[in-house]
């Protein structure tokens, strides 16, 4: 249970036979996606520092978990990200411009591309896990072969909603995949203080559903594990709980200072040096003759341009107008909204009181 499923070792060696589950094109795409989202993440931090975005939640270090899982999905599948899972959203088809808009506090930041089902980033911890039970249940009732994939963190496993979601999914055998990115911390609280249980995967036993613990920095392992869970789900065998063990290199958000609660210099650097998801795939691809430095640089340059274009799109997107807040509260606006919108628009009266 507490052993870690691994396919690609940190040294870039295959630990298991791939059994034809991964072709080279997919591997290259994995690498490209991870490069892209890491660059996106770093750019976002800079934008936040420059005051062009609000507080931002970075994911660097967790690329394999997010990219590997999202790449295992089909376009019809439902994706439930938290505030840290925009890499997954982007890979599943969300536009980077939209993600920028979200962090810019734009009212349109949570819109899914219309042919996809990418949920808004979920802020209240663990609450989205239950929605992913509901959407999956509906897919099943409608006879659609679609899964719902819920992302959440190690801290989320302490919330009652975690429990209720897993239990519901177990009872109704919904095609839901629960992917916990155990990055070791819920803001400052290490998992050892979050629970007496040693792993998250072991909790699956409480619901008699499968639980898998996987190296979350191993994009192959994540991809293959999710694929297996999808197969089970689509075969009507119900949910799977997956614990992807990983680490965020940086702060919880740009408002957080990780040095307050952990040894950033040594531990974060150790993860980066010894278990980086991108580096191990780079080594592997190089051995396969699929990677050269020149090629990576070319890709990076192209990604940089894509990100800049997305940023330009976001920054030139029409700003949220105050009156936007009155839209979409209900299908039909209430009389309160109609009147209050007028109050909002009222200029400051300059006339005095009658003498």
């Amino acid at each position, binding site marked *: 249970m507490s052993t870690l499923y691994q396919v690609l070792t940190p040294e870039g060696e295959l630990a298991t036979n791939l059994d034809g589950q991964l072709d080279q094109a997919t591997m290259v795409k994995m690498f490209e996606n991870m490069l892209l989202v890491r660059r996106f993440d770093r750019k976002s931090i800079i934008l936040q520092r420059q005051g062009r975005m609000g507080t931002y939640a970075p994911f660097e270090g967790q690329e394999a978990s997010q990219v590997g899982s999202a790449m295992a999905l089909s376009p019809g599948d439902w994706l439930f990200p938290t505030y840290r899972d925009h890499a997954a959203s982007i890979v599943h088809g969300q536009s980077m411009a939209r993600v920028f808009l979200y962090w810019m506090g734009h009212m349109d930041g949570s819109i899914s591309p219309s042919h996809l089902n990418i949920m808004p980033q979920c802020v209240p911890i663990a*609450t989205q896990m239950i*929605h992913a039970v509901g959407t999956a249940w509906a897919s099943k009732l409608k006879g659609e072969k679609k899964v719902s994939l819920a992302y959440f963190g190690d801290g989320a496993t302490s919330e009652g909603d975690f429990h209720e*979601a897993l239990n519901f999914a177990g009872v109704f055998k919904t095609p839901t995949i629960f992917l916990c990115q155990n990055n070791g911390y819920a803001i400052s609280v290490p998992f050892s203080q979050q629970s007496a249980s040693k792993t998250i995967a072991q909790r699956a036993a409480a619901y008699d559903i499968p639980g898998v613990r996987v190296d979350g920095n191993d994009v192959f392992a994540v991809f293959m594990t999710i694929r297996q869970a999808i197969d089970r789900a689509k075969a009507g065998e119900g949910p799977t709980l997956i614990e992807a063990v990983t680490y965020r290199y940086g702060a919880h958000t740009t408002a957080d200072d990780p040095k307050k609660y952990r040894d950033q210099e040594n531990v974060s650097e150790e993860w980066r040096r010894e278990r980086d998801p991108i580096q191990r795939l780079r080594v592997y691809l190089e051995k396969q003759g699929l990677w050269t430095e020149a090629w990576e640089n070319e890709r990076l340059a192209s990604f940089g341009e894509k990100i800049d274009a997305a940023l330009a799109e976001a920054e030139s997107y029409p700003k949220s107008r105050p009156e936007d807040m009155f839209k979409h509260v*209900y*299908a039909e606006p209430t009389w309160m909204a109609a009147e209050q919108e007028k109050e909002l628009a009222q200029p400051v009266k300059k006339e005095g009181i009658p003498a």
Partner: protein
Amino acid sequence: MKRKLTMIQAITEAMDQKMAEDSRTMLLGEDIGVNGGVFRATENLLQKYGPNRVVDTPLAESGIIGAAIGLAMNGMIPVVEIQFLAFIYPGFEQIVSHAARMRYRTRGHYNVPLVVRTPYGAGIRGPELHAESVESFFAHVPGLKVVVPSNPYDAKGLLIAAMEDPDPVIFLEPTKLYRAFKEEVPEEMYREPIGKAKVVREGNDLSIFAWGAMLRVADDAAKQIEREQGISCEVVDLRTIYPLDRDTIVSSVKKTGRAMVVHEAHKTMGVGAEIISVINDEALIYLKAPVKRVTGFDVPVPQFSIEDDYMPTPSRVMNGILETVTY
């Protein structure tokens, strides 16, 4: 002879007909399947529509409401039964932070056509937390609608309207009225509009605003005081608590110049406060006396042996009427 139903029968019929008409409709809740619900609101529906559409869920209200949100977002029309209103609290976050906000956050790309039904209010001499009337909580949450029927006819028409509403509706069913009386209810499907109050008694001296089980208390008091003292009260059944039907409230007060609110909920921050505020905003100068609140007291609902004393009674309402008209 016309067919008469109790409120609970009218509610069952509304769900039954909607289930028959629209296969997206499904019912979820604790003990609603085999058992037909603790008040029998879903009696026989499992047998009729099967376990995929009438679902006995695990005992977990956040799970029920949260799953229903997901179901609603993916094409179903879930109608959730919460066993008693006070047991909705574990699902409060799902209602407030998700059901009410999904349309808003996604700029209309997703909506949550969810109905949460629950027995509400005192009157069955149950143990603690079986008699709460906390409609206020939901009436402060933009994105929700809050509906309370006071009779079988409205219960059916409003519940059908709620199930057809594209937005989440909290549907509060006065427990005390479930079997209190029968009334003519048309067999066919019909809708009563959400957001519209109904003047149930015309009058000139004072307007009384009430809903749910208190409507009858108010109306009984109005009848008696008219008979005994010739005071003519207009009685308005609000039916929808959020959004309020301001026009009906205001025009009644403009006519009578006096007003009263009767509700079971605690006085402080009860919906009466908002009604007073609406009158303040729109009809202050018509008021000949302060708007009177006859309500549950600012104490936890007591154990059932004195539960009736917590509740507004016709006598308390009559005292309030007299105080207001003699102000």
